[in-house]
């Protein structure tokens, strides 16, 4: 920890680099050596089921949790462990929990968080007013936060995270409980900010349509990063293996039968159609197998398909190791 220690310098296109992040709680390994880069000015989506280590990773990257091992570098050379204070002053964070003071007015909340980030009063007032106008909540500035609707609170919380104009924004399930229209508005703004200011965004979400809009995605499962890439690249990994046939008269019997087939990785119902994922390189065999049900055609995979396939692949690998 000497001052002369050489600072790792990132390539200019990379804003944040996480290297071998590990976090243990007692003997439980919540995050098991996660490494990834977040490109500058892009929206990076972090996907994974509850308890997969997503939030723990974010908490480490915000400086809330000290990693058991590994490190993260961002802001052109700051280390999250060494420069925690400066690191925190340059990031914005909005969590899945509604984290404003419910008993203060909207303006009081924003003034408080602004002051905490060291903003002086004329500048702070301008920023509050402009963010409120931008996010359409000027009307509720004098209201007590508790009385706002979920969608409104979420906009205020976003404003609170943006007041100090952070270069890096963490959004931990930001749209939970918000209606589709509200989600739309929210995402439009995030993209605008990323494009306008070159702000880098890391977001976690359960909504696949939201994930679809991210520039880069990373899947995390049981504390391991199992895949990453652009939505397009990720889908490409499955695109010639996903087959679709009409469900037929007894779809459930057909499904049960298909699920036992070693040629297939997975089978499921999608409306009136049956979808089957062939194991890599066995698409032709799968087509033959599905022939009695009708002509199989290649389907466009959704991110959900990718996600399920990745999770299943991992579970099977584990079973093999155990056997």
């Amino acid at each position, binding site marked *: 920890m000497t001052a002369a220690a050489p600072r790792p310098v990132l390539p200019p296109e990379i804003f944040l680099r996480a290297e071998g992040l590990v976090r243990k709680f007692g003997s439980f390994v919540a995050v098991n050596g996660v490494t990834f880069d977040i490109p500058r000015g892009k929206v990076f989506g972090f996907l994974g089921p509850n308890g997969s280590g997503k939030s723990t990773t974010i908490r480490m990257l*915000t*400086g*809330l*949790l*000290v990693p058991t091992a590994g490190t993260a570098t961002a802001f052109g050379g700051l280390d999250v462990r060494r420069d925690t*204070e*400066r690191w*925190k*002053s340059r*990031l914005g*964070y909005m*969590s899945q*929990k*509604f*984290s*404003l*003071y*419910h*008993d*203060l007015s909207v303006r*009081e909340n924003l003034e*408080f*968080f602004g*002051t*905490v*980030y*060291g903003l002086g009063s004329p500048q702070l007032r301008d920023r509050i007013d402009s963010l409120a106008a931008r996010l359409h909540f000027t009307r509720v500035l004098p209201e*007590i936060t508790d009385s706002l609707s979920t969608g409104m609170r979420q906009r205020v919380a976003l404003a*609170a995270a943006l007041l100090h104009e952070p270069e890096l924004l*963490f959004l931990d399930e930001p749209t939970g409980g918000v209606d589709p229209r509200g989600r739309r508005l929210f995402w439009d703004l995030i993209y605008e900010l990323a494009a306008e200011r070159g702000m880098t965004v890391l977001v976690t979400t359960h909504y696949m349509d939201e994930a679809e809009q991210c520039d880069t995605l990373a899947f995390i499962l049981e504390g391991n990063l199992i895949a990453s890439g652009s939505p397009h690249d990720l889908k490409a990994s499955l695109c010639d293996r996903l087959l679709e046939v009409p469900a037929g008269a007894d779809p459930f019997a057909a499904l049960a039968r298909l699920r036992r087939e070693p040629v297939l990785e997975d089978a499921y119902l999608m409306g009136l159609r049956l979808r089957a994922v062939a194991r890599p390189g066995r698409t032709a065999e799968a087509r033959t197998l599905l022939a009695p049900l009708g002509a199989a055609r290649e389907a466009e995979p959704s991110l959900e398909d990718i996600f399920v396939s990745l999770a299943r692949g991992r579970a099977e690998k584990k079973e093999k190791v155990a056997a």
Partner: protein
Amino acid sequence: MKRLLALTRKEFLQLRRDTISVRMMVMVPIMQTMIFGYAINYDVKHLKTVVYDECLSFDSRELVAKMTASDYFEVVGNVRSLAEVRQTLDAGHASVALVIDREYGKARHRGTPARALLIVNASDTTTASQAMSIAGGISNQLSVQTLAKKAGWKEKAPPIDLRVRPWYNPDMRTATFIIPGLIAIILTFTLIQYTAMAIVRERERGTLEQLQVTPVTRLEIILGKIFPFVLIGIFQLTLIVLLMRFLFHVPIAGSVVQLYLAGLIFIAAVLGLGMLLSTIAKTQMQAMQLSFLFLLPFVFLSGYVFPIDGMPLFFQLITYAIPARYFIAIIRGIVLRGASLAQLWEPLAALTGFTVLIVALAVTRFKKTND
């Protein structure tokens, strides 16, 4: 510093919205001072007394008159049999019965022992022992007068002239003794609970986490939480001191500055306990319930109402672990006896030691649980 100020301001803004809590902070000290100051009285007078006078003579009436003149006994009825005595006491219509022997008057004149019987409802031990000692005193006084006359004692004073002077509380008022100690109880009552709840609420709401991703340091978070409660503590302390001085007319014999100094140390200890509690409690409800866990021993084992000397050894040992014990000893010393902190160095050292220990423990645990 600017951040600390923002945190403090925020805390007061929140408090201002919570009008019920604000009222409680003012009303609880006032109500408790009133209740404890007016209602608690160890000096029980006008005990309901029933008389069964078998003698019905001048002498027996003299004994009854002496008893009532003491103000401690008030005759509520005369009965004609022991069965009636029993019935009156059983029913709770009287708590003392005086039975005077048929031969009482004759014995007084003969110069043989004159017999009377005092029955006391001893279920309430405090009242009973007081009645017994007062009655014993009256009979002793009568006996001494009789003997002195017989022996030809010419002096005004009795053969052994022991004078008693009740210092520090010459009127022997219970309120004078109780109210200074009340300062400790009220500070404990409000501050532990409010601090614990304020911190737990922030954790429950997720605002604590939100604060922790800002550049605010842990120390600033802790100080920002505690500072408003220090002010509230000082406010309550002042409120009780004013009520004590001007409503209950308890003079402050010692230094007010030293009283506040000791008060600040105790406030720090109580806030530390509140913080410690916030690291254990998961919800505000638990925080509230846990604060009662502290409150009970603070009230009953601090020497506030029940004298520590009267406790069994085991409980006496426990009292050493209760910071309120030392603080109560200090305030009583300053307010009632006019002692200086230098004279009270022992409880002061113990209180300070405890405070440092509690605060250190609270800060370490706070850091750990919020990591």
